[in-house]
């Protein structure tokens, strides 16, 4: 293995300003502010999305990056892919960088598959003749041969994602940066993507891979960086890194059951998420009404903008799905900040610990604006609900249904006995 450097990061920090006062977003507001407070200092709060991160990555390394939402992973990738520049420190990059931060960035629904391959490829930094040379390979990988001259708005979401990944995977950069692409697509396709990334690394190129999927991280990488609250808290073998991350998760388990977006991120996104449980501190009593509340920032309304979330159990299984896909939803037409609440009159998930994952996407273009996972940890308890002789035991099931039973001697006209369990 070569030990030539591919990336050297030294004391890299990124600061975002967050408005305490309302930040002027129009020139008129700016002028009014300047007239009202001619000598006012810029007293906005700052947030360090990334602080003093240093690491070296050698050519041919396959490195995983893990961390909770808002730990600074996306910021790090944005810096490495040159979308934004660091506030402090320096990064040296040896070789052409190809970043796939979001599948299908730059795809246009009205253009055909063929046109989009060229569009997306050049956006990602390829020359047209490079694309032409690899065109057949890309199309074969994506398995969309028959639909090349169909506008991609008619593609199924699977085809769309396959084509988008195929373009990026054939970029042949010396340094490939991939963010959570495996959140989309079916498992067959995910295996294919993982295989492709492995192949890229085998040819002596460097791969950085961000994921919430520990399985993927551990099969693909030997080395892992763990980020927490903007700091690089671990750099070592993947197995130790994952252990570190899990320990960190556990120590954060008593975190309040709410989420607040790191400032500096933009585009359509969840600004705040909160689970209103029936009891204090993220504890919910079975069968009580529960409310899930989200604050959404929608600067780019889209005609098929959709929001949904899933509740995951402790084994990372999705057990419940709630959504807002209304065709007349206001955030599809007007930009702004929206408060979206979901009320469940009687929440029947069984005792255990749960988290939620949110999905904010555009159905028509298959753009996933944001997908957050492991938000708002909360627990469900069976407190105050007695079950004679059998104690409630976590893991027995994930869901308890209302039910009544009727017991009668078969063939007898005697009065039947009745009982049951309900909210």
């Amino acid at each position: 293995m070569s030990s030539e450097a591919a990336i050297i990061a030294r004391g890299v920090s990124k600061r975002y300003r967050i408005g305490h006062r309302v930040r002027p977003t129009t020139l008129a507001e700016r002028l009014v502010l300047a007239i009202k407070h001619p000598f006012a200092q810029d007293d906005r709060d700052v947030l360090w999305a990334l602080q003093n991160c240093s690491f070296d990555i050698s050519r041919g390394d396959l490195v995983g990056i893990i961390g909770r939402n808002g730990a600074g992973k996306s910021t790090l990738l944005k810096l490495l892919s040159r979308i934004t520049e660091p506030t402090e420190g320096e990064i040296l990059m040896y070789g052409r960088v190809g970043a796939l931060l979001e599948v299908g960035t730059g795809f246009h629904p009205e253009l055909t598959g063929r046109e989009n391959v060229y569009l997306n490829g050049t956006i990602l930094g390829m020359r047209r003749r490079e694309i032409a040379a690899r065109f057949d390979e890309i199309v074969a990988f994506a398995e969309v041969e028959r639909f090349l001259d169909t506008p991609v708005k008619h593609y199924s979401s699977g085809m769309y994602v396959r084509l988008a990944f195929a373009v990026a995977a054939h970029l042949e950069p010396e340094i490939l940066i991939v963010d959570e692409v495996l959140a989309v697509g079916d498992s067959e396709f995910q295996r294919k993507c993982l295989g492709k990334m492995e192949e890229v690394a085998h040819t002596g190129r460097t791969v950085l891979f961000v994921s919430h999927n520990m399985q993927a991280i551990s099969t693909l990488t030997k080395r892992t960086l763990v980020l927490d609250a903007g700091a690089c808290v671990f750099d070592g073998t993947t197995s130790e890194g994952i252990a570190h991350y899990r320990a960190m998760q556990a120590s954060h388990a008593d975190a309040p059951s709410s989420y607040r977006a790191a400032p500096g991120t933009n585009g359509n996104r969840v600004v705040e998420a909160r689970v209103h449980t029936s009891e204090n501190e993220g504890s919910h009593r079975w069968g009580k009404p529960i409310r899930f509340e989200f604050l959404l920032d929608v600067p780019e309304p889209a005609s098929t903008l959709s929001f949904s979330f899933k509740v995951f159990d402790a084994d990372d299984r999705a057990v419940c799905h709630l959504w807002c896909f209304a065709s007349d939803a206001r955030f599809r037409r007007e930009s702004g900040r929206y408060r979206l609440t979901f009320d469940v009159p009687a929440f029947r998930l069984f005792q255990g610990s749960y988290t939620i994952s949110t999905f904010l996407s555009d159905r028509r273009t298959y753009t996933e604006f944001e997908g957050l996972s492991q938000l708002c940890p909360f627990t469900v308890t069976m407190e105050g609900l007695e079950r004679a002789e059998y104690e409630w035991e976590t893991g027995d099931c994930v869901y308890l249904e209302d039910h009544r039973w009727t017991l009668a001697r078969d063939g007898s006209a005697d009065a039947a006995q009745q009982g049951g369990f309900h909210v």
Partner: protein
Amino acid sequence: MTAAAPLRLAPGQRNIGREFAETWQARDLLYTFADRDLRLRYRQTALGVVWVVLQPLIAAGIFTFVFGKVAHLSSDGRPYLLFAFAALTGWNLFSGILTRASGCLVGNSSLVSRVYFPRLILPLSVMPAALVDFLVSLGMYAVLMLVYGVTPSAALLTLPLWMLLLCAGAFGAGLVTASMTVKYRDVQYVLPVAVQLLLYASPVAYAAARVPAEWRTLYYLNPLAAVIEGLRWSLLGTDPPAAGAVAWSVTAAVLAVAAGVVVFRRMERSFADVI
């Protein structure tokens, strides 16, 4: 082997040579963006190409009716329709580039916040579509000349100069407004009003010679005045603009591009953070 010189990313790290080299490297992207815009424009409109021809024709028709027939403005003895159309082709080139360039960053905000590419490519990529429109309307103008039996003069040879000045001025101004729109969204509401005012402050519907003499110096401070007059001179053989006024227009165009590039590069680093 690739060159060993690494790319250094650090605060305020600017290397203008590298940036221009990268912009040149990304010329295929410019082509792709322009291609996308052209394709989409003609794919989504029912009238397609016809629309590009109709637009200036309708505008010239309205001008002819309002200013030529109702207000009886002089057109230096030329058919008013030709007089207005010649100037409108140039005006549309200018306002087309300016308006599209202004919106190009915000209009592609999802790209700007998610992928790196030399940002200058975006405003540059609006030019081909505007030039295509310009050529189509020149073709239309040629037809009108035949219809009216007007023959072009040797002044036609100066056409590229006026085109270049219009493109440069619009591009420079567009860079500034595009950068500002990222931070202050109301720029996009102010701009159409400003463009409308500029239309009437330029000799499109009337000849600059009609402006009272005592106002003329002030009038020619608008760098577009001499360019539009020059364009009409080259297409229709009306009076040429004064050399001094043209010199000012050239200076203004160079200044606009320089100022545009400086402002754009200054604000470029924060585009992804605030867009």
